[in-house]
């Protein structure tokens, strides 16, 4: 930042929010030019968590890179693992097994619920409601216990393998998943009583941070950000990958139930409704889960995809995660570029926060649901 502040008008002042701030969800720094309570301009500064993920990818083999994808979106590590595995499998023409794909879908949707639960809990926390956080983490704990049984880790799983999975889903895990899904539906109603229909919460989020559909599209917003603005776009439906075309589910979009289409409440509600849809997918996948191997045993340690490149995209909890991999026939990628959904979603912050109140800034950042590990990579 320049120390020259002569461009500030007499009534204006600069305010620094972050990088250490409880409601920026990580090390995000926003420099705000305010006129009293009104934000005239907000400039996000990112990069505090940059760990050269794309450079690291060029120095290691494809399977070695899987643990690094965990650390991007660490609240949805499973989804990142699978997206990278799918990308490499498509690039190298590697087959997976039927059972592995079903387990991936089950685990992916469980991860989506877990990730949205954090979004729900922390958003309540941002808005001054402490209790929902405790309940959402109680349910998230049940999911993490299933994941711990699967792979031994509780946050950064590295569960995906190229050609399949690290371990099989055993009977006990299936039973745990079924019980969780049944239990979750009743809990979901409680969340709505607790927060979604709470008068104070609606007052803080409805008609706040309205993101019109055309702006969302122009800024490349995806996931609940885009759907909250009323655009029905979900890669699981529109560009189906893996076996997602076999399941029945709806794509919830923002309808302006409490205020305007595309406000903070709509984005929040899309996440809530998506959890319900995810549990529908999990039920169908559990019923159809085939027997068989969980890993294609023919895939070796060294994978050398032929010369070529691929852009693979998957619908992550935060939006479209894309891997652009260039291969020159070596065992290491020549270039591995990542399209992080949070990175693109955050870039619209300046536009959204224009002429809003400072207190609403917290509501807006919370409704974007960023993970800084993914923004900075």
């Amino acid at each position, binding site marked *: 930042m320049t120390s020259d502040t002569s461009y500030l008008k007499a009534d204006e002042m600069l305010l620094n929010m972050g990088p250490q701030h409880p409601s920026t969800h990580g090390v995000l720094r926003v420099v705000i030019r305010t006129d009293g309570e009104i934000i005239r301009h907000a400039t996000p500064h*990112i*990069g505090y968590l*940059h760990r*050269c993920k*794309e*450079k690291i990818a060029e120095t290691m083999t494809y399977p070695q890179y899987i643990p690094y994808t965990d650390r991007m979106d660490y609240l949805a590590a499973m989804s990142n693992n699978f997206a990278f595995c799918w990308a490499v499998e*498509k*690039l190298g023409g590697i087959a997976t097994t039927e059972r592995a794909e079903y387990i991936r879908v089950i685990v992916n949707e469980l991860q989506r619920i877990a990730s949205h639960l954090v979004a729900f809990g922390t958003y309540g926390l941002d808005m001054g409601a402490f209790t929902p956080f405790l309940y959402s983490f109680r349910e998230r704990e049940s999911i993490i216990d299933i994941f711990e049984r699967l792979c031994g880790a509780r946050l950064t799983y590295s569960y995906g393998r190229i050609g399949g999975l690290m371990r099989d889903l055993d009977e006990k895990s299936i039973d745990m998943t079924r019980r969780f899904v049944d239990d979750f539906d009743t809990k979901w109603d409680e969340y709505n009583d607790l927060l979604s229909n709470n008068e104070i919460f609606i007052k803080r989020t409805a008609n706040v941070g309205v993101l019109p559909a055309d702006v969302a*599209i*122009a*800024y*490349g917003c995806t996931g609940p950000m885009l759907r909250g603005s009323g*655009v029905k*776009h979900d890669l699981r439906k*529109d*560009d189906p990958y893996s076996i997602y075309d076999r399941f029945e589910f709806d794509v919830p979009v923002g309808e302006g139930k409490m205020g305007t289409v595309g406000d903070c409440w709509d984005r929040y509600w899309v996440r809530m409704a998506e959890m319900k849809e995810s549990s529908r997918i999990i039920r169908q996948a559990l019923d159809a889960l085939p027997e068989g191997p969980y890993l294609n045993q023919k895939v070796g*340690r*060294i994978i050398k995809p032929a*010369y*070529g*490149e*691929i*852009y*693979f*995209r998957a619908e992550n909890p935060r939006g*479209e995660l*894309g891997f*652009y991999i*260039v291969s020159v026939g070596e065992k290491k990628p*020549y*270039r591995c*570029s990542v*399209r992080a959904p949070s*990175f*693109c979603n955050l*870039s619209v912050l300046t*536009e959204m926060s224009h002429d809003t109140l400072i207190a609403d800034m917290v509501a807006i950042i919370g409704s974007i649901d960023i993970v800084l590990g993914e923004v*900075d*990579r």
Partner: protein
Amino acid sequence: MEIAQIFDSLKQKFGDAVLSVDSSVKSPFITVAPDSLVVIMRFLRDDPAMKFDMLLMISGVDYPTCFASVTHLTSLTHKHTLAVKVELPREAPEVDSLVDIWPAADWHERETYDMMGIEYRGHPQLRRILCPEDWEGFPLRKNYRQPEEYHGISNVRQIGDDYYPKPDEDEKAVQGWKAPKPPPAPKAAPAAAEPATTAVAKDDPKATPPSPGGETPEA
């Protein structure tokens, strides 16, 4: 719309500015001339048959002969995707900015500038986004050397270069790795072993193999 159709209609409209299409790779891409990038992109966004309304990503690739700026587009209306590549000379990688067409290009171009050193002409504020503003060099270039220190903080390993295995030693270890063989069956001592003794030793699980230089096992 298939990539061949897109290429044909672009070729019809822009002629020689559209260089080539590579359909042999998994995600086909079209290469265009850098000078015409903005007009072609504007056409791709506005034409009703194309309608690429969303910019997904801009990334740079460091090829041995040139730099490439790759733009991935998608259309929410027609549900198709497209990759457009421009090849830029290594000495002065410069291309026009796409910010006026898609505001999403803002951060992506800043990131590509930060990491790969590609200049986007006409970008409102082309400055580093992930690295600190006083960082030297462009990290994703293949010839990048990490600075030895940053503001007096050393980046060099103090323990000495020979502490860690060299990368090629590591690779040899991985390639030569095989499942460990089971330990070889104990052989009876060559001179003292009679055929009968061996047979008994096989039947009796408790029988211990003869230690070298020790006494032969009792049958």
